[in-house]
């Protein structure tokens, strides 16, 4: 069976920026694949090329074994896809039901309106105007419009950006149910915990290229350490130990000095932290912050690019 998404050598440039700079990707059947990256990394451009909405400058795309050739072929392929775009605003003055019914009318095979509203949990909002929905409800409606065609392959472009944690979890459940029914998902996000939670595999994108690819677990493991220790000093840098001193501490794999804090990637917290405290005490330096957390994809991104994901 051919993978639902195959692309090779994808490239797209706009007047003054290279949005996608040579990208190869394979998404397997029943997989949830995440494209991760900061704003402007080229995620939307990539996903819209795969959706057949943007023509690439170079590269091959094959979706469900078909190419975007136009005409009847393309229409047949669209019947099998569910698409949610990053920045669509559905008509404010239509009700939820009317909106779903409109999208439903474009497809030959489809869920009933009741079914699809049930899938995204919007039954009670059936007669509400779209303009009166909350952000999370609007986003679930957008996903409903993508699901109404009973797609085999679902594209979601930043489905949870800007949503509160509860709405985000509701959408995760929707995606989970779609996958449980055998669907394949390609989603983009810049929330690392979302990718870790939802995706079987992720590709981290930066400047139009994939800079890391694998399961969330394997990417985190590639840091060579599972924890991150962050600290900052009360009296600034005057008594701060330098990077090589820190790197020499037991269990420390990597040292990154940030603007207001220093982060250590650490294999064994129970050995590294006492050693760090000892070193600082010998220097007479006073801590203003000390925190540890499990390494995340965020740390992977930082270690690859030297930048934070959110403000990259």
């Amino acid at each position, binding site marked *: 069976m051919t993978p639902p998404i195959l692309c090779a050598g994808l490239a797209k440039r706009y007047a003054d920026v290279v949005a996608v700079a040579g990208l190869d990707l394979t998404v397997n059947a029943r997989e949830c694949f995440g494209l991760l990256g900061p704003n402007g990394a080229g995620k939307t451009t990539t996903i819209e090329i795969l*959706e*057949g*909405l943007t023509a690439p400058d170079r590269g091959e795309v094959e979706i469900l074994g078909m190419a975007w050739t136009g005409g009847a072929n393309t*229409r*047949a392929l*669209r*019947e099998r*896809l569910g*698409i949610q*775009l990053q*920045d*669509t*605003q*559905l*008509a404010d*003055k*239509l009700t939820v039901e*009317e909106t779903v*019914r*409109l*999208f*439903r*009318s*474009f*497809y030959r095979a489809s869920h009933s309106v009741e079914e699809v509203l049930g899938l995204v949990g919007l039954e009670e909002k059936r007669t509400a105007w779209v303009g009166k929905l909350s952000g999370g409800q609007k986003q679930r409606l957008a996903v409903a*419009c993508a699901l109404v*065609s009973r797609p085999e392959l679902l594209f979601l472009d930043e489905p949870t950006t800007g949503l509160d944690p509860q709405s985000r979890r509701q959408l995760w459940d929707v995606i989970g149910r779609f996958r449980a029914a055998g669907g394949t998902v390609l989603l983009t996000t810049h929330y690392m915990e979302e990718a870790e939670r939802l995706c079987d595999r992720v590709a981290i994108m930066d400047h139009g290229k994939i800079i890391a690819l694998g399961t969330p677990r394997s990417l985190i493991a590639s840091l060579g350490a599972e924890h991150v220790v962050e600290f900052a000093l009360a009296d600034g840098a005057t008594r701060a130990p330098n990077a090589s001193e820190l790197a020499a501490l037991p269990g420390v794999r990597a040292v990154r000095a940030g603007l207001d804090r220093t982060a250590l990637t650490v294999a064994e917290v129970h050995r590294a932290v006492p050693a760090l405290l000892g070193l600082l005490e010998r220097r007479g330096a006073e801590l203003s912050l000390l925190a540890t957390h499990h390494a995340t994809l965020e740390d992977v991104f930082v270690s690859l690019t030297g930048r934070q994901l959110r403000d990259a």
Partner: protein
Amino acid sequence: MRDHPLVQLTLARMREFYREPEAIFWVFGFPIVLAFALGIAFRNRGPGELRVAVLRGAGDGAVAAVLARAPGLTAAVLDSGEARLQLRTGRVALLVVPGDPVVYRYDSTRTESRLARLEADEVVQRARGRADPARVADQRVTEPGSRYIDFLIPGLLGMNLMGSGLWGVGFSVVQARTKKLLKRFMATPMRRSHYLLSFILSRLVFLFLEVAALVGFGWWVFHVGVRGSFTAVAFITVLGALSFAGLGMLVASRARTIEAVSGLMNLVMLPMWILSGTFFSYARFPDALQPFVRALPLTALNDALRAVMIDGSRLSELGAPLGIVTAWGVVSFVVALQIFRWR
């Protein structure tokens, strides 16, 4: 049937329109308000009662009583300062100074004043014993068909077809584009032709209501009739609506923002508001301008509507204006399809 994409798209168009109170007003209310206001302001009633002043002094009461007998005049006795002020500001048309001779003071360049002088003199002379040797009779003409409102209603109908065609199509298309809804539709198997056709269909539904509202109002309030056939009016309005829908599509085919499309829309409509003879006859424009004025779609549409509604012309006599309206629609639509920005 109900779940056919064309039906659903058309329903969506219509819902978005009738759930927008401002749009309802501009399409249905505004032309009626305009017809009402202009119909009242320019109703055929001549200059009406003219006010004349009699200067206070010997014999003023007698002169005022004589003047009051004239059917078109009302007379008031005023002191000299007040009389002069009112004459200067046009509150009275004429100042009569009793005595021998009777003196008429007035501005001879004002039509009203000259009229007042004629009427005043007539009653003054008759009061002194002048006899009218010839027998006369008056016949007043306020026939429907020759009044300003009869001219105005077809023009407003044409203007309304232009406005709702351009705004109705142009605004929704550009709004769908700026909200990325157009792009979202492109991500479905929806046929582009269905999308465009849905505008035409919803226009036709509202067109029926628009025409019925305005023509019905004109008939009910001002007794503006349709001398030709209703079928001919229906045919011309449908043709006009389709033509302006095509023009709306063209105006909206590339614009990315509401501001841009609004500007373009006004650029297209402004010359026609002024030149196409909606409120007054375009014959008043210089000869050199006439070929251009006549080539405008609204001019042709107004001409055709007036020919049927006022003169009772048949469609077969209206080849030229209907040809112009059709040509605008077809050319705009074809060009719009070529250059339309689908995302």
